[in-house]
């Protein structure tokens, strides 16, 4: 990965992924089938991937919504069945942009918490692999050796884990939407139980 690309990918992870669940909810309200929404989300990420730099983007959440909106509009245009109420609906939904999300208010500690929780929620074997890879920093080969399994097993489990995490990001987390910062241990134990 080039340095520029690496920076964009890191930015997407930090500033965009936390808003994906909200974006999907917003899109689902404007578009009938969930299939459309998945397509729009993927196309939207493709646009973000094409950014040469991201320093100029002051409001990543608004930027994400705007990008998704333009993808959705393009699909409408391509479909050539444009109903004015669909269009108005999209305009009306701009109200979403004005709501600062809990994520935006929260700081980095919450992000760390979030990453830990995502990993903690994985099935057992996946979770152990992710902890070794992501927290201890061991390469996949070493993980396979320690667990006494083949590298392919580690690969398959990692794919499974990554997909579970992507799904969790798509759905969003169900938790109190308040900006009050709770003692971090509380959430962790609750999730782990």
């Amino acid at each position, binding site marked *: 990965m080039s340095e520029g690309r690496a920076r*964009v*990918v*890191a930015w*997407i*992870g*930090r*500033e*965009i*992924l936390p808003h994906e669940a909200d974006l999907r909810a917003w899109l689902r309200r404007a578009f009938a089938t969930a299939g459309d929404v*998945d*397509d729009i*989300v*993927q196309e*939207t*990420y*493709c*646009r973000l*991937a094409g950014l040469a730099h991201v320093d100029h983007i*002051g*409001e990543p959440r*608004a*930027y994400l*919504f*705007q990008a998704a*909106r*333009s993808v959705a*509009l393009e699909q409408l245009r391509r479909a050539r069945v444009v109903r*004015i109420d669909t*269009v*108005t609906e*999209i*305009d*009306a939904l*701009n109200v979403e*942009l*004005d709501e*600062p999300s809990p994520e935006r*208010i929260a*700081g*980095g500690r919450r*992000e*760390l918490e979030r*990453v*830990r929780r995502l*990993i903690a929620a994985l099935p057992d074997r996946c979770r152990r692999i*992710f902890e070794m*890879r*992501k*927290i201890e920093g061991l*390469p*996949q080969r070493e993980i396979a050796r320690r667990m006494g399994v083949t*590298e392919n097993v*580690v*690969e398959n489990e*990692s*794919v499974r884990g*990554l*997909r579970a*995490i*992507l799904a969790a990001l798509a759905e969003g987390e169900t938790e109190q939407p308040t900006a009050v910062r709770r003692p971090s241990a509380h959430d962790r134990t609750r999730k782990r139980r």
Partner: protein
Amino acid sequence: MTERESAADIEAAAARWVVRADRGDLDPAELEAWLAADTRRQGAFVRAQAAWGLLDRGRVLGAQEPKDAPRRRIGRRGLLAGLGAAAAACVAVVVSPRLLSARYGTTVGEIRRVPLADGSLAAINTDTALEVAMKPRKREVRLDRGEAWFQVAKDVERPFVVESGPVRVRAVGTAFSVRRRDGGCEVLVTEGVVEVWSEGAGEVPRRVTAGERVFASDSAGAAQPVPASLEINRELAWREGQIVLDGEAFGAAAQEFNRYNARKIVIADPALAEQKLVGWFRTNEPESFARAAAASFGARVTVRGDAILVQSVAPLAE
């Protein structure tokens, strides 16, 4: 033929690529080929990469507390005023003594469709003055101000000529629009062929075909026509009461909205005016447009009397 790959399949494959890259077991050319086949794959791949990378922060973040991003407050969106109502039916159709001559006017914000006596159709945009005279040898339309699109009924005996200042646009059976601007006219052709010239320039008429646009200056006549079929569709979206933007500058887009509304968008900061936009809006909802644009630039909107003011916001001091 092959069925369209589902988003879920793409996501699964993207996760596999990311894990294989992490393992160091990857042929970049193979990945490139996979990505090149569908933009959704590129999106799914970057998303999986981002999620994978995000997990590394479990380690990185443990060490240091990251700084908060500068916060900005965006005002809540107000309810839209019922602007459309104001621009209702104050239309003057004056039948002059000359038979089948009619004058049409639209007020700011008004868009009308008018069937003409010869079976042609005119769509008349905001703030326009138009006069139509159906003569035995010629159908004459005078555009004194504003913009109109015509779908012309075929009649080889009687050419359809739009006159705007010295500029002339002649059609037989075709569809095109004419917009009066300072010093000339913008002509967009949606069907068939038209001829464009200026009486002031004494030139040979320029042929402009469907999907082309041309600017005819009052004094110098018609320039070289430019192919612009996609643009034309967007620019004529006003016929459905819409403004479609695809990479236009915020400043230019605001001027478009201002054609339709008494309440004008004012952009306080020149740098903001240069920001590019994509979107689809109603002509009579300038505030909704201003707020959507402002939200994506991190700017602030203030409504004051007849002005919708858009300003940059400096990040609040922490």
